[in-house]
């Protein structure tokens, strides 16, 4: 009984810490993105709220919380109100399987530094990533606006297409690590990070991950110069904030996945493991922002062609080659 209670307390503490860190990181990722993107475009970025604009995320949050929460006339009220939560919740839940350090021992108890070491962790991530599509598609549909609907349709089509290459690109990783668990995958990278063994899978995964998190050059669901704001056109206040949060948490999760699956996760010399994971996430995020600052948005047919005609065949070929090498 005592050990059970202690286990629950430890779990809740871990959940609390991870939730706070992830939300803070999402908020400050917005700041990092605005600042870094601004420098890429020879601007300053936010620099009014606090030193270097460091209080900007807090100011934005307060603004969103105090704005009126409007529901357009003719909207499907219940779905309209619930859809943003789907995006935010699925993105947050994905963090449950990301390991951020090796097991530590506190008061004679072994505490794994991961919320839950699911033996199908990777599948869990994909399942939640697919569920995230519902938030986009339903939000776009329930708004009863043509821009939202078009954005929602595009979002659904794009996310389903890129989910395939996202999943297929990771099959070689699973073959190498012989496990779906992210903890085991990090263990398997003790000697060599998988980016050196699977550079092709890495490329496909990063491209698909950017498409999954709907970032430029794959931001067709939002496409502000043709669809106003896409699927969240009609949203305001904190519900828009939830979409925004979901997007950045999603970006963070996918950056964390890149770090865990290809860059060796929390492994690194000198610094403590969670710091290494943080550095790797930030690095991937900065590269994503750099890509955003450089490339224009793809046309819709180009997007579909890239997904179906380029990434999926290469991913399949990669699986075949990896399988052949493993067999020999």
């Amino acid at each position: 009984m005592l050990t059970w209670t202690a286990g629950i307390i430890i779990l809740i503490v871990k959940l609390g810490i991870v939730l706070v860190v992830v939300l803070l990181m999402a908020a400050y990722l917005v700041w990092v993105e605005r600042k870094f993107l601004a420098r890429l475009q020879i601007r300053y970025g936010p620099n009014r709220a606090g030193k270097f604009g460091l209080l900007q995320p807090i100011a934005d949050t307060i603004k969103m919380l105090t704005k009126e929460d409007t529901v357009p006339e003719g909207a499907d009220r219940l779905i309209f109100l619930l859809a943003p939560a789907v995006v935010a919740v699925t993105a947050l839940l994905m963090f449950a399987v990301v390991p951020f350090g090796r097991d530590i021992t506190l008061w004679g108890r072994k505490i794994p530094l991961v919320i839950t070491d699911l033996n199908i962790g990777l599948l869990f991530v994909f399942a939640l990533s697919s569920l995230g599509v519902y938030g986009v598609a339903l939000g776009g549909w329930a708004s009863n606006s043509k821009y939202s609907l078009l954005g929602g349709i595009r979002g659904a089509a794009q996310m389903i297409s890129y989910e395939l290459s996202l999943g297929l690109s990771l099959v070689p990783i699973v073959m190498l690590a012989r496990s779906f668990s992210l903890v085991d995958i990090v263990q398997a990278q003790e000697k060599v990070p998988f980016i050196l063994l699977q550079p092709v899978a890495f490329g496909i995964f990063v491209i698909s991950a950017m498409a999954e998190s709907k970032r430029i050059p794959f931001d067709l669901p939002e496409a502000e110069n043709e669809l106003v704001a896409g699927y969240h056109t009609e949203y305001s206040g904190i519900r828009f904030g939830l979409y925004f949060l979901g997007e950045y948490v999603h970006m963070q999760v996918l950056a964390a996945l890149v770090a865990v699956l290809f860059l060796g996760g929390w492994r690194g010399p000198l610094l403590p493991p969670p710091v290494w994971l943080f550095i790797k996430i930030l690095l991937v995020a900065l590269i994503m922002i750099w890509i955003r600052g450089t490339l224009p948005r793809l046309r819709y047919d180009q997007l579909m062609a890239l997904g179906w005609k380029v990434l999926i065949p290469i991913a399949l070929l990669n699986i075949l080659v990896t399988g052949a090498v493993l067999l020999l």
Partner: protein
Amino acid sequence: MTSAWEATKALATGFATTFKHLFRKPITEQYPEYKRPLPVRGRARIILTRDPDGGERCVACYLCSAVCPVSCISMQSAQREDGRRHASWFRINFARCIYCGFCEEACPTSAIQLTPFFETCERDILKLVYEKQDLLVDHSGKDHEYNFYKYAGVATGVGGKGEHFREDEPVNLKSNLP
């Protein structure tokens, strides 16, 4: 194959360009700390000027109000004892004003003028409704010499009949019958 090579090269050039921009000094002008010199004929905050002798120039002819595309000017005309017309009240809603300058062009007496001062921002929108005492200044703005009543041919304190600039003596209608 060549197209793939060219695409890669184009991508690399793009990324190199943005990367180089990262180390350039931002070109943004930081507004409240640095105020760029304004063009002297910049159009912003509207004033009502006075003639060189200190009288109100506005004769409440309603031309500015009529020409205003957003209808932000309103007034009420009245007449003083000495024959000068003026606006008993004059109101400009700067929350609506688009600073097009049509009012200045329409004004026959150079009374209404636009100044380059633009920092009129307020938290309360009603504070942007300026009354006559807020608009009236005690200088003559851009047109220093002009005094409408010196040319007007109307008997006022500025001059009686025949005393205005380039005005002939009044003719006695009864004396020049054929």
